[in-house]
């Protein structure tokens, strides 16, 4: 089934807006929007778990951080690490980490799933805090940005802020399209079934744990993509990247943006990220303001910001919708 047209057009317009932004926007905001787009990828990856598979992970930042550490550790002082090596290694490393964590986690559900994912993330957090080889609490610098080239030719200079911007925007769109494709495919139908009624899905002939594990690995890998971009962008990674605070933030992006829509969590990341940016300077009580904001959204917008958008459009059925593309 196809997505509703007004929504598709809105999303296209949003991408168009992002594409022209670097030429019209303040250079400071170019940097910020890169960060927001990275958070958008991160939030979409969690939406696959929360909004479509029904698994609420409180340790999703582990994969975000691990990927960043992999990039920092493999980048030589002399720089010039090829992205064709760096990105696959970071993604594969994150996928393996997600496979291990998922292997244990998908056996549990509900609050136990939340606790076990948090426990694994905290293990990763303390591992990096306590190992001075990995920078300890100070974290690690990424010596140089990966080199995007082909046989000595440079295709894209990631050191240039505009290039990095478009690189990130491209990956944001690609992530959306890939996840939308997966969700439309037979696999996507099964994980939605699991979210709605796991026991019945199993009774219909699906080994549901296997599907949950694969979903967990896919989500972890896309979180790894976001972590890779973040570390490459800021040229820095620290234990706070994989702390529970970061996991909690991305959870809020998904919930506030509207889970089970893919674009909602991106919206959530943008709204929250911008608020963070605006109020951080204005008030020391940023977290208090944020707390009120969260309560207000939960009370007045039960389906998140995306729910508001959909409500303004047309009434929706109850299930998670096919993301439009």
């Amino acid at each position, binding site marked *: 089934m196809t997505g509703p047209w007004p929504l598709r057009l809105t999303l296209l317009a949003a991408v168009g807006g992002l594409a022209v932004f670097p030429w019209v926007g303040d250079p400071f905001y170019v940097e910020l929007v890169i960060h927001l787009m990275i958070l958008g990828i991160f939030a979409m990856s969690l939406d696959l778990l929360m909004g479509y598979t029904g698994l609420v992970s409180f340790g999703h930042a582990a994969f975000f951080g691990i990927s960043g550490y992999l990039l920092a550790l493999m980048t030589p002082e002399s720089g010039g690490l090829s992205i064709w090596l760096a990105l696959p290694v970071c993604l594969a490393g994150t996928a393996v980490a997600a496979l291990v964590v998922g292997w244990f986690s998908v056996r549990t559900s509900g609050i136990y799933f939340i606790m076990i994912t948090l426990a694994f993330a905290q293990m990763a957090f303390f591992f990096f805090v306590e190992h001075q080889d990995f920078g300890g609490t100070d974290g690690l610098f990424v010596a140089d940005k990966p080199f995007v080239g082909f046989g000595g030719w440079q295709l894209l200079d990631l050191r240039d802020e505009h290039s990095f911007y478009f690189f990130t925007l491209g990956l944001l769109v690609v992530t959306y399209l890939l996840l939308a*494709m997966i969700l439309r495919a*037979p*696999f996507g139908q099964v994980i939605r079934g699991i979210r709605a009624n796991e026991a*019945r*899905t199993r*009774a*219909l*002939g699906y*080994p549901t744990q296997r599907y949950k594990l694969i979903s967990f690995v896919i989500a972890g890998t896309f979180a790894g993509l976001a972590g890779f971009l973040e570390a490459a962008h800021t040229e820095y990674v620290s234990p706070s990247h994989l702390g529970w605070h970061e996991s909690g933030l991305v959870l809020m992006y998904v919930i506030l943006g509207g889970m089970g829509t893919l674009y909602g969590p991106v919206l959530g990341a943008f709204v929250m990220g911008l608020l963070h940016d605006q109020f951080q300077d204005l008030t020391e009580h940023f977290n208090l303001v944020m707390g009120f904001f969260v309560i207000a959204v939960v009370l007045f917008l039960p389906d998140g910001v995306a729910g508001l958008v959909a409500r303004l459009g047309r009434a929706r059925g109850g*299930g998670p919708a096919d993301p439009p593309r």
Partner: protein
Amino acid sequence: MSEPILNTLDLSRHFGALRAVDAVTLEFAPGRVHAIIGPNGAGKTTLINLLSGDLKPSSGSIRFKGQDITGAPPYVVSRLGVGRSYQKTNIFPAFTCFENCWLGAQSRERTSMRFLRPARRYRSVRERTERALALCGLTERAHVVSSAISHGEQRQLEIGMMLATEPELLLLDEPLAGMGAEEAARVIGLLRELAADHTLILIEHDMDAVFAVADRLTVMVNGRVLETGDPQDIRASPAVQEAYLGSGEGGG
């Protein structure tokens, strides 16, 4: 008598001190409609849960087509060709009727670990889904969200989801419960139709329906099999009269 398609041997399931199913040994002949009746709490649903793999037995064994399936998980049992419907409606409320049946139909593909092609382009799945919707009488309601249809229609959907998996053996747990007279008559007709080329194990409190479709009857009381036989023999059995049929209330 031909080799049974399914049989249980001393099958038991205890909940603490309660013997919900107690040493049940039964044989189900292929191509027949075998009804299981008994008062509330007799252990009928628990027995179905054991057969479908939803519950693990405390002891005893189950064989399906010569293969030991004792303790096999529900998805294995389903893929072997055993379908079930639930007494307590067990659907995907946020999905449309079509999507509910789709998930059943898609499970008959070799695997659903497919990530590229849109699911709706799988023609074989679509055909199975549409057939199941037609059989259970919900073609017209295909694209209505299933939480919005009537209770009776949800009962039909329950059967449709099972049929979408194209099972050989159907475990039907009170398919008529909560249906209006007209819907019930329709479903009884459907059961008769299905009986032509399926094996049915039918739990039902509606005695008229049972006598209308069953070839064989088992009476369960307190987790145990009281008696098994042809419908007319059971109807005439004094023990059954006393324990169940003649009690004036007839269950349900």
